[in-house]
């Protein structure tokens, strides 16, 4: 079959060239369609349901909102699990569906259920679905800020309320309609509200209650339509406007009457713009700002969308009042561009190196050029494949592409063609005519095509187990495996079609093949070494085995890392404070944090989201801040080659001395993934389920204590579910009864006075602002004032009041009041900080990492100890979770798939040679190739990782490829009738050049990657290190150990035969 293909390509060489060109063009077009992102998307299929419950504490939120919502979702098709979080004022239920579920289908299902449940929720509570975005969705962030000295229309400096108003009513509406944007989320500043703040003593004086005030405002702020009348053939609409137009109209609203004298709002309350009780704030470089985050719709191209957003922002900037600017603080384009730059650099450098190596070793520029052409061609074909398979281009998939490997097959074929062509020319003493040339090329290709095709196929197969990974690992590595498979497949096809055709076309005339000096020298010393090796086979084998054992020993003690962290360039920094930290305090603390970080020379700017944004895509309490530290381009750093880890250390050192904060370092996208996946991020976790929060908390703490004592445990943490300061106003039912008050009436007063109550809206053109009634700010925070809050008594109690009160003259109060303190006890305590639920049950997580110990035995021991040491009451249960779950499932899959793949490779090898012995011979080369890789990693102090694993895979491919080429050549010589030793020596010396070439191409091509610090370096460095180290040992093996082994095996067989 292969031969037929080669023959066809040679016969129809122009057609093949044309087809190749066409395919390349298709690839180039595909590249423009390819969704390019920085990192693979590892988000699961999930729908967030956010429900705002203004003023509710975590317990009430859970009881009245989260529970009904969660219950309604049970039994959805393709549902994987639900989890929920109830915090102050917010309920968030996350519904996770099985992978592969259509997101719109999922959202529709959830939406249907929500409609059913809305009747069961408290009035006015409206669940909303989160934005249709994944963890890669936050592509663009900007701040709205005023230049120093800028003034608004009234001549006042811009405050954070008016900036937020601009964000909400000018910036956001424009950005929202940019194609590919699904949500623009605001945080920071204050949403403008109109506050009506009654003074309690005036309410008492006029005998008015909060309710009277609320009702009065509601009754006096409505526009009404009254249909139409017909008049002289005309239809006239009737309208009774009543909406308040400005603050003065609100002040003039009549709240009550006294003997015909109206009491206006102005008499009992201040009316003016006020600040909402916000749940989040934002800072930039130590200053409070308004921050917007643009969410990209699922499946869009982040680069294209963020460019559109940036362009739109330019326009928006022109529409803003003078002195107010919208400034980009985070733009995904930067990262994506850097990713593309990395890939470009690899492509160019790889090609140049390949050309250089080929030219040096072949001494033929044309041959070198056409081999190098395989790189861009394979690349373009890969893009076509990726675009069709909807695989995104990112640091993982493109960054790990290995060009040396791609050209290996072509190198072997071209090398053999050149050798044979020049031999043929020398034989005949003249340039070959076309027909002869075609014959020689066909024959030369055929000679090595099987080994090189099978070599590539073997590498393909080794990648297959990666496709068996599922979950986060699967999402992380599938794009990479698929891309490599596409690339290799493209290279394979090219090397049997395009390469022979191009050789035949380009290498006409005299074929120059100069043995370079280096090669001649190499060949001479190789011949010497090979002879010695063949003479003392035992010592060669012992040395090889020793090397193997040593490297295995080293390998088993090396650090491990499952998922490499892709360097996004910037740093994300969680600043964590104790529960109950107020927003104002947190902003204050963040301010000093940001100015400390801002002093580092590498930092361009910093910005932070504190607490929860308008759309609660990440529900954080005010005690948690998501900080972003954006770096300058490396060229502007004092030391452009400074590793990221050092930089993180610098940042840590800069902020470590600030009291009251603890930190977690991640990266912007990584952080978002963590928030969305939100599984347990530690190695192991014990989840405790049950009813009573206090019992759960105690169980959690007990389990944490036990876990901490199990050897190997580190970073043991129990989820903080308590610790939120709570002012509890306990109503005394007996006292209420004495005054004839209802519980609800008193609750309402507290709710209105402290939490505020929306009594209506004020319209300013299209903008609308809530009219909120609540206590003046100075009284809200005053416990004494809260205790004195006037509660209006029911009317009938008044009559006997006038009878008993001694003063006879002067008006008696129109209405009697009691202070809140008379019917309630105020006490400060702590309450639940948050209530977490999973699959409809309250839950507490105790998490731990495992160091210097295998997780399996740790879990077994910990489980035993917990069973012995903790009395779990009935109705409560524990389950184990954490990364080790994924690890276990991945291991189980790989335990099946890896041996299968190995078997398949072996079968292919056996097929190539028609001999198990030779297959095994070639196979035995793999471990020795790995020794070099392990040693190289060890020397550079790089841990074992999937990325290194990919390097080992590539390495095995090179080792097998070289082995196959070498053995099959020797076999061919023997079939020509030569003896074992003679064939071995001749074959080995002849194959020295291709072996060295593939080795050099692969290893030199990786040198820039191994030293790289640019985007994608963390994926490339281990991979490149393994390949470079491994190539050295692999080449030594192929050239020395393999011939020795071959002779041992063959001589024994022969003796027996």
């Amino acid at each position, binding site marked *: 079959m292969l031969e037929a293909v080669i023959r066809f390509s040679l016969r129809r060489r122009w057609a093949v060239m044309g087809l190749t060109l066409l395919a390349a063009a298709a690839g180039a077009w595909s590249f423009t369609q390819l969704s390019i992102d920085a990192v693979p998307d590892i988000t699961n299929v999930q729908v967030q349901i956010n429900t705002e419950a203004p003023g509710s504490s975590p317990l009430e939120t859970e009881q009245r909102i989260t529970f009904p919502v969660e219950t309604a979702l049970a039994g959805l098709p393709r549902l994987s699990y639900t989890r929920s*979080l109830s915090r102050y004022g917010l309920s968030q239920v996350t519904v996770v569906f099985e992978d592969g579920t259509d997101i719109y289908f999922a959202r529709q299902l959830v939406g249907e259920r929500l409609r059913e449940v809305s009747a069961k929720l408290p009035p006015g509570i409206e669940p909303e679905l989160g934005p249709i975005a994944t963890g890669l969705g936050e592509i663009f962030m900007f701040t709205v800020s005023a230049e120093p000295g800028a003034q608004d229309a009234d001549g006042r400096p811009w405050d954070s309320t008016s900036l937020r108003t601009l964000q909400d009513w000018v910036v956001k509406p424009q950005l929202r309609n940019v194609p590919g944007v699904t949500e623009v989320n605001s945080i920071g500043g204050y949403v403008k509200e109109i506050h009506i703040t009654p003074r309690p*003593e005036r309410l*008492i004086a006029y005998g008015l209650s909060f309710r009277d005030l609320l009702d009065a405002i509601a009754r006096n702020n409505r526009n009404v339509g009254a249909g139409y009348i017909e008049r002289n053939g005309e239809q006239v609409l009737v309208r009774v406007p009543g909406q308040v137009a400005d603050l003065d109209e609100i002040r003039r609203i009549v709240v009550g009457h006294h003997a015909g004298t109206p009491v206006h709002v102005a008499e009992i309350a201040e009316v003016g713009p006020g600040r909402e009780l916000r749940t989040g704030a934002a800072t930039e470089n130590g200053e409070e700002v308004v921050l917007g985050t643009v969410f990209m719709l699922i499946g869009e191209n982040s680069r294209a969308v963020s460019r559109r957003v940036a362009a739109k922002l330019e326009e928006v900037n022109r529409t803003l009042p003078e002195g107010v600017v919208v400034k980009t603080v985070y733009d995904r384009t930067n990262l994506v561009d850097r990713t593309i730059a990395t890939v470009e650099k690899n492509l160019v450098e790889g090609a140049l190196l390949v050309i250089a190596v080929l030219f040096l070793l072949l001494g033929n520029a044309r041959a070198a050029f056409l081999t190098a052409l395989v790189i861009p061609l394979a690349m373009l074909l890969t893009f076509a494949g990726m675009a069709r398979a909807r695989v995104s281009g990112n640091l993982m998939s493109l960054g790990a592409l290995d060009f040396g490997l791609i050209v290996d097959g072509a190198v072997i074929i071209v090398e053999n063609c050149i050798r044979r062509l020049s031999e043929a020319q020398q034989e005949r003493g003249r340039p070959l005519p076309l027909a002869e040339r075609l014959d020689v090329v066909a024959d030369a290709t055929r000679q090595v095509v099987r080994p090189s095709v099978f070599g590539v196929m073997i590498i393909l197969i080794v990648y297959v187990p990666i496709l068996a990974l599922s979950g986060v690992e699967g999402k992380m590595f599938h794009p990479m495996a698929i891309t490599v498979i596409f690339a290799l497949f493209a290279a394979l096809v090219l090397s049997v079609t395009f390469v022979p055709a191009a050789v035949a076309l380009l290498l006409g005339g005299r074929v120059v093949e100069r043995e370079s000096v280096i090669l001649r020298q190499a060949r001479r010393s190789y011949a010497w070494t090979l002879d010695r090796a063949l003479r003392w086979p035992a010592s060669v084998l012992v040395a090889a085995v020793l090397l*193997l054992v040593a490297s295995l020993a080293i*390998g088993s003690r090396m650090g*491990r890392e*499952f998922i490499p962290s892709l360097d996004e360039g910037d740093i994300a920094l969680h600043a*964590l404070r*104790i529960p109950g*930290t107020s927003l104002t*305090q947190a902003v204050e603390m963040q301010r000093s944090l940001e100015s400390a970080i801002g002093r580092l020379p590498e930092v361009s700017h910093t910005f932070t989201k504190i607490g929860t944004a308008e759309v609660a895509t990440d529900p954080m309490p005010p005690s*948690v801040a998501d900080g972003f530290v954006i770096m300058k381009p490396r060229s502007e750093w004092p030391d452009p080659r400074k590793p990221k880890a050092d930089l993180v250390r610098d940042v840590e050192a800069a902020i470590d*001395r*600030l*009291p*009251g904060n603890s930190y*977690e*370092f991640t990266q912007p996208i990584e952080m978002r993934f*963590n928030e969305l996946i*939100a599984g347990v*991020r*530690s*190695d192991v976790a014990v989840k405790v389920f049950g009813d009573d929060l206090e019992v759960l908390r105690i169980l959690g703490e007990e389990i944490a204590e036990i876990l901490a004592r199990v050897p190997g445990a580190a970073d043991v943490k129990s989820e*903080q579910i308590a610790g939120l*300061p709570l002012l509890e106003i306990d109503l005394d039912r007996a006292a209420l009864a*004495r*005054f004839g008050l209802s519980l609800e009436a008193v609750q309402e007063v507290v709710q209105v006075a402290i939490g505020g109550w929306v009594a209506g809206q004020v319209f300013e053109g299209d903008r609308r602002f809530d009219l909120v009634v609540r206590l003046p700010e100075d009284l809200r925070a005053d416990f004494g004032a809260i205790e004195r809050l006037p509660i209006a*008594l029911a009317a009938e109690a008044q009559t*006997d*009041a006038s009878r*008993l*009160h*001694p*003063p*006879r*003259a*002067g*008006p008696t109060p129109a209405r*009697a009041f009691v*202070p809140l303190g*008379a019917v309630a006890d105020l006490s400060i*305590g*702590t309450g639940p900080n*948050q209530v977490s639920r999973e699959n409809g049950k309250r839950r507490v997580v105790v998490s731990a*990492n*495992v160091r210097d110990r295998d997780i399996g035995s740790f879990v077994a021991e910990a489980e035993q100890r917990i069973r012995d040491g903790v009395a779990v009451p009935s109705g409560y249960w524990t389950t184990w979770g954490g*990364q*080790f779950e994924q690890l276990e499932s*991945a*291991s189980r899959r790989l335990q099946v798939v890896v041996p299968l793949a*190995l078997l398949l490779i072996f079968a292919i090898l056996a097929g190539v040679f028609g001999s198990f012995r030779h297959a095994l011979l070639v*196979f*035995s080369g793999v*471990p020795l190739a*790995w020794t070099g890789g392990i040693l190289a990693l060890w020397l550079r102090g790089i*841990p*074992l990782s999937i990325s*290194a694993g990919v390097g*080992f895979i590539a390495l095995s491919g090179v080792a097998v490829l070289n082995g196959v080429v070498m053995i099959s050549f020797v076999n061919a010589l023997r079939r020509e009738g030569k003896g074992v030793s003679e064939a071995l020596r001749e074959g080995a010396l002849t194959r020295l050049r291709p072996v060295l070439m593939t080795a050099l191409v692969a290893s030199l091509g990786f040198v820039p990657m191994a030293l790289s610090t640019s985007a994608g370096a963390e994926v490339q460095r281990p991979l490149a290190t393994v390949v470079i180290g491994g190539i050295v040992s692999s080449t030594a093996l192929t050239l020395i150990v393999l011939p020795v082994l071959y002779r041992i095996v063959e001589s*024994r067989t022969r003796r027996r035969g």
Partner: protein
Amino acid sequence: MSRSPNRRGRCVAVAAVSLLWLSAALSCSGGDPSSERAAAASTTGEFRTGPHGGRLLEDGSFGVELSIYEKGVSSEYRAYVFEDAEPRDPAGIELEVTLHRLGGRVDRIRFAPRGDHLVGDQEIDEPHSFDVEVAARADGREHHFEFASYEGRVELDAEQVAAAGIEIATAGPATIRETVLLNGRITPDEDRLVHLMPRFPGVVRSVHKRLGDAVAAGELLAVIESNESLHPYELRARLPGTVIGKEISPGEFVSSDREVFAIADLANVWLALDVYRPDFGRLRVGQRVRVDPGDGRPPIETTIAYLSPTGAANTQTLLARAVLANPDRSWRPGLFATAEVEVSDEEVPVAVATSALQRLRDGDVVFLADGDLFEARPVELGRRDAERVEVRAGLTAGQRYVARNSFVVKAEAGKSGASHDH
């Protein structure tokens, strides 16, 4: 037969390959997520624990395990003695533990045998944070141990303190003025208020004063023609004052049980204050009152003149009264006013700024400052006013404490527990 070792060798090679694959690719554990930052829960570090969960101290063959036994609210030290790691009879062992606390307090605890262990002779106060010195004498040999056992201790140097805006003050005597805020109404002085009624029913001939007119004693108010008195009679003011009520017009028939004029002397007015139940016991006649007229004029001072012996049934309030001088008649009866009654004015031996207070484990604490070290001290609070609060226990005069931005210290002490849970 020579094949078999060979084959075995190959099998080993294959196995090695698979093993390597596995080890490289899959058994890579999640290992060390660099983002995770281990926060040390205790500053004291690791130590050996004994069989009773306490700290095990060893010196040669002698060993003593010290544990703090918590029984309800109070706690005591218990010590278990070992010889060659075997429990031994505690009798005859002399043991003394000295606790050096922040702020200079030193607790010396002596031990006496009880059952299989020794027990300390005093309770260990919270917080259990101190440098511990242990002196033991067993079989004629002295053993000495020292260790630190800190709980919630925070170290901040001067620079950090300044940057965080922390202010440190010294606890000491202060005057605490406790006040009660009351709502009230202005009423006329009832002792100087006259309700006039006609002596005989009749027809009003003329009316001479209007509402709000000032009248002198004996001044003519109205003339009424009565059938009973047979000739018109005059209605005159009994005392000087202002007409505050008038329900009489010429030509009108008035009966003798109807009040026609109310005349009040407004030189003094009364402030009737509603006192709510929790404040009953704190009010006394003679206490100083600051009255805010609520119209922008400065508050004036007076005293409580009267406390009603009865209460109001509907509001469960008590009437308190203060007299206000009203020379310019600006206090108008009928209007509302708020008053601040000073219910106590006392010198207390130890007081701290109210901004120093924080809550920790359901109790009030003040952060003690000693050089660069800070530690929470549970305090028992007494009286308080807007600025200062009395400390009854937990802090002594002369000790330095965090007066402002104390939250930062609390946050620093508690930060190891701060986490980001989703």
